[in-house]
């Protein structure tokens, strides 16, 4: 099957076509770019670096109901994710798509998490290759990704100037391509080759890096190392680095009951940087200070996760570096780990 292209003039039309599904695209609100459901193609803001909040929230919402109940009534009503319908995330970055593939390993490990997996199944990911790195702190090639990375994506768009090259990568992607049949045209023969060249060039523009070999094995041995105290001294214990991380997946489960007994059990993002995250009911906290919490965050991403799933739980998007209020820099920490 020939590779397709989408002329930039037809992007509005294509988005309109896709809005028969639940269409999620980057949109601007003040200076912040976030992924949200869009009704009007005009809302989509495709000329962006990267979103502040990663699109993980589409498949793993910040708050979601697991089941509903009426206090005193034994019946529990399970959330039907299917009702949310087929979803298309348009224009996400390859790192964020790869993050979903990485997190899926956990959500399908041993016990299947029906909510995450169902949403993942219903969602088609249309990626937008990073011709220019979205931020100075991008380091995706160091952790196994790339600015033109295809892992996790169903379709990959590459900005070729006047048009996007459209490469379908999965069956879901092919289906979506068929939906857009009247907007797509056949691409020129050399376009794919040209995109490969652009990919190599784009990778060359990424300036930050870390040698990850050996880090997963080394981290457990640095348990009592002084570096943890040093790197966490400035930490405020807020949730920016974890909430904005595309691979952070920890959650809390809470019950909420309205006055008339109508209740729900729901889960919401939680952060290992919060003090009550690991606090026991007895008041004992196995991770009592920011030092232990920072150590756990880094170890989880770079040691525990790879030891179980063979992949580092970090995609190098640079959000935690860009947005940390006190300039705690994960690459700086990892360099200290390497040097320790």
């Amino acid at each position, binding site marked *: 099957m020939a590779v397709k292209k989408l002329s930039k003039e037809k992007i509005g039309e294509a988005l309109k076509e896709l809005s028969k599904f639940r269409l999620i695209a980057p949109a601007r609100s003040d200076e912040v770019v976030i992924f949200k459901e869009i009704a009007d193609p005009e809302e989509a803001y495709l000329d962006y670096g990267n979103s502040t909040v990663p699109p993980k929230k589409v498949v793993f919402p910040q708050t979601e*109901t697991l089941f509903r109940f009426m206090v005193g009534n034994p019946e529990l009503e399970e959330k039907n994710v299917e009702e949310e319908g087929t979803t298309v995330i348009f224009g996400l970055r390859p790192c964020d798509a790869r993050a979903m593939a990485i997190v899926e390993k956990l959500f399908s490990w041993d016990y299947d998490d029906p909510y995450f997996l169902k949403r993942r199944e219903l969602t088609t990911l249309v990626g937008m290759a990073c011709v220019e790195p979205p931020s100075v702190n991008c380091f995706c090639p160091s952790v196994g990704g790339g600015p033109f990375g295809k892992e996790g994506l169903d379709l990959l768009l590459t900005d070729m100037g006047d048009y996007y090259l459209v490469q379908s990568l999965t069956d879901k992607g092919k289906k979506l391509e068929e939906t857009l049949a009247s907007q797509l045209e056949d691409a020129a023969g050399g376009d794919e080759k040209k995109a490969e060249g652009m990919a190599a060039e784009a990778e060359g523009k990424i300036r930050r890096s870390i040698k990850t070999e050996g880090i997963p094995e080394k981290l457990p041995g640095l348990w009592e190392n002084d570096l943890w105290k040093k790197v966490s001294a400035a930490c405020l214990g807020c949730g920016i680095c974890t909430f904005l991380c595309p691979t952070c997946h920890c959650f809390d489960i809470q019950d909420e009951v*309205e006055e008339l007994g*109508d209740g729900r059990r729901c889960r919401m993002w939680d952060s290992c940087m919060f003090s009550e995250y690991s606090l026991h009911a007895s008041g004992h906290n196995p991770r009592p200070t920011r030092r232990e919490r920072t150590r756990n965050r880094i170890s989880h991403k770079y040691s525990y996760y790879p030891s179980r799933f063979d992949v580092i739980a970090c995609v190098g998007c640079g959000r935690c570096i860009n947005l940390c209020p006190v300039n705690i820099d994960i690459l700086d920490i990892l360099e200290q780990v390497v040097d320790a």
Partner: protein
Amino acid sequence: MGDNTKTDFEPNIVAFLCNWCSYAGADLAGTSRIHYPPNVRVIRVMCSGRVNPLFVMNALQQGADGVLISGCHPGDCHYMQGNYYARRRFNLMRNFLEYLGVEPERVRMSWVSASEGAKWKEVIEEVTEGVRTVGPMDKFKRRQLNW
């Protein structure tokens, strides 16, 4: 919210009454058979100074259309100063909620003494009317059915 809701609308008002004056005043209104609007749900607290601004916010979240805090007249507080503290707190709270777009008619404060059954009636009438004119509070009410 349709236009007709404003006329058909019966507001829910949560009133925090101090144990020593306003609660007794409301009680007196009752025992004196004074008729006043039935829209008020009374919560008795020991002093108007005990009313945490979070109570007000929580009431509005949980479906109250208006909140009234009532205590002893200045100088009459059973605990000497509680109502003075409350006065400061609620002046700021009221201005702030107005700044966010919550009508000032929704958060009211009054002084009603134990002997003022008649004033209690007037206060309730005014608060209820005020809330009725601004309509139901749905700005940041918790959604009942939240999937």
